């Protein structure tokens, strides 16, 4: 069974990478083991091993850029290896846990933003605060506002933003026009009204005004922008079941109940939502800016669409959860290796590479200097949907920096399914999940 399980896990991860909008994948270099540093005196390059977890075209983009780095930096040789999905609990993360436990980790790794506290609190990531402060291009002030929200733990920096995204609001301009609505909603009151106005038809040809994504990532926005918090400030108890955390969830649930919003369920819910939007079945949804490329190619100019800043709720301040991954150096690797790894990371985040990476992949640029580049500005002109994501950055609020956060989101995911897939009431369900989380956190300690 164990073998089957592992096979299925890796196949599952591979398939999910394919489903996430990618083609064939990835060059794998075998034996990516860190071989230590060079023998002193010889001029062999320092080998830096780099694990990442995005497949398909994204993987090819990484490999290309790594090759470019290796060509231009003869003293360093970066070996980048695709290890399966980097998502929380994905294959790359499982392998990283195992490698750290076995004492043979890679030198650098991509880490999902919500998993950063798990690794940094256990002392597994190198503190790069002083490296950043001394850096010519990676000083904390060089980054776009909000971009470092997920890379800090207890006042120190443990990573640089790598493939980052934020959720944004998507709307179908054609459906808006035929319903006589001129602009995307800025508030949930407006969104609710618009959703009712946009819903029409019946049976298989019914068009729904809105589709909530049954996922814990947009849920972070829903809690924090309703005026609530996810965990108490000490990270020991759940606060997301309190009334001030449930406003947006409640509004979404009402739309579903009144038939003005639809939901997708099952494991492919995310891809199905993208497909619903691209086929004009729903007029509005909330999705990652990272999906913009896939959405554009699925719609293929059949209708006009756009993005907008996430709507606010009853005058509360907008809070946008960061998504995607950061890149971190493992602690305890030899000094020479660490230096080489840092050189690579500085190179990767410098404006030229930062711009290439974000224009090729749809992930967000990380540096202010990148956004000011002429090439990036003209990219924004032809792809205005990314402008929205950039203007959301300053509202980024990171999820609680708790090493046990992965437990929280798994529990929440089940609660969201109870609300949207089964139509259970919002308040009692979320209170129940909060109780479950309390129970889990207390017995976990830290």
């Amino acid at each position: 069974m164990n073998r089957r399980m592992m096979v299925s896990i890796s196949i599952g991860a591979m398939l999910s990478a394919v489903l996430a909008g990618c083609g064939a994948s990835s060059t794998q270099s075998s034996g990516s083991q860190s071989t230590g540093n060079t023998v002193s005196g010889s001029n062999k390059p320092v080998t830096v091993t780099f694990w990442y977890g995005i497949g398909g075209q994204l993987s090819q983009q990484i490999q290309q850029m790594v090759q470019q780095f290796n060509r231009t930096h003869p003293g360093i040789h970066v070996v980048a290896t695709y290890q399966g999905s980097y998502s929380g609990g994905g294959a790359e993360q499982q392998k990283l846990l195992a490698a750290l436990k076995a004492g043979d980790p890679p030198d650098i790794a991509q880490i999902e933003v919500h998993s950063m506290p798990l690794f940094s609190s256990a002392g597994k990531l190198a503190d790069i605060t002083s490296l950043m402060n001394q850096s010519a291009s990676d000083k904390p002030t060089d980054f776009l506002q909000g971009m470092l929200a997920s890379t800090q733990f207890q006042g120190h920096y443990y990573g640089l933003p790598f493939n980052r995204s934020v959720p944004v609001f998507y709307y179908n301009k054609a459906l808006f026009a035929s319903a006589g609505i001129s602009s995307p909603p800025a508030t949930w009151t407006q969104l609710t009204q618009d959703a009712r106005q946009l819903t029409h038809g019946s049976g298989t040809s019914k068009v729904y005004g809105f589709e909530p994504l049954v996922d814990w990532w947009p849920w972070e926005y829903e809690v924090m922008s309703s005026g609530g918090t996810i965990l108490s400030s000490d990270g020991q108890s759940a606060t997301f079941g309190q009334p001030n955390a449930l406003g947006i969830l409640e509004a979404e649930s009402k739309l579903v109940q009144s038939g003005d919003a639809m939901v997708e369920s099952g494991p492919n819910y995310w891809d199905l939502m993208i497909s619903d939007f691209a086929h004009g079945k729903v007029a509005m949804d909330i999705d990652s800016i990272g999906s913009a490329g896939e959405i554009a190619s699925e719609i293929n100019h059949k209708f006009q669409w756009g993005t907008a800043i996430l709507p606010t709720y009853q005058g509360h301040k907008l809070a946008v959860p960061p998504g995607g991954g950061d890149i971190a150096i493992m602690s305890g690797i030899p000094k020479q290796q660490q230096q080489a790894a840092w050189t690579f990371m500085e190179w990767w985040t410098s404006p030229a590479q930062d711009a290439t990476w974000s224009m090729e992949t749809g992930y967000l640029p990380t540096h202010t200097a990148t956004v000011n580049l002429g090439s990036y500005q003209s990219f924004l002109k032809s792809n205005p949907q990314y402008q929205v994501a950039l203007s959301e950055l300053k509202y980024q609020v990171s999820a609680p920096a708790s090493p046990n956060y992965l437990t929280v989101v798994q529990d929440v995911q089940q609660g969201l399914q109870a609300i949207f897939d089964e139509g259970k009431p919002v308040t009692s369900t979320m209170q129940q999940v909060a109780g479950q989380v309390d129970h889990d956190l207390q017995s976990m300690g830290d």
Partner: protein
Amino acid sequence: MIAPYLVFVAVFVIGPLVYVAVLSTYRWNLLSPRPVEVGFRNYVYLWNSSVFRESVSNSLLLAIGMFVFSLPLGFFFAVLLNMKLRGTVIYRSILFSSYVIPLTASGLVFTLLLNTHDGLLNRVLEQFGLQPIDWLGSSHDALWSVLMVSVWQYVGYYMLIFLAGLQNVPESLLDACRVDGGSRWRTLWHVTLPCISPNVFFAIVVCLIQSFQTFDQVYVMTGGGPDNATSTLTYYLFNKGFQMVDIGPAAAASVVLLVILALLSFLQMSLGRRWVVDEF
């Protein structure tokens, strides 16, 4: 000669088994340098956890479902195939082919077939004027969908086990029964079944163990959802250990699984002695 095997078992079976038992008395996220020793508190945690209880009952329901549906169905097909009709080779291959397909692959295909809005199955239902069913998204139906796929997946395997038995039933016994005026049903019940009882026994043991190990279908089709409606014991311990990185309760859950399977096997072995005819 047996040494390499023993080494293998010690390193990959006994070792991990002991380690899991030890881990189940700790609270640990795999990374922190100081795991907290908690004694049997992880077991208490499981006892009080509604999610765990739901996972156990889901596993039980799946096992009962597989026992009730896939074994008789497999036997039915085996009897049909044993009638030496034309084309049995083709039917045999078709029936067995589902077992050869990796569960992850068939799970994905079924996920598409069972999709609420665009899935083939609901389209067919609509043609007959029936309401579409939320196969994977409703807590009512999702476990049935998982069971359905499991039955589809394994029925060919059980069929083959039964068929192997049926083909070994001595023709002379069947003839004797027929000559004595036994009906088809009597022949089946009093001659055929006792003759293939070792196969039936094997099929039951394998069926129950396999059901308790249900993982792939759940991982691919539902991710344990909605709201834990399809979480099985194996999925629970995977989710707890590797998605929540909460290794203590996960290890405790594996120990519980081990105990359940050991008990089941023991029960079957001791009950099996009463009705399994080894020689005929």
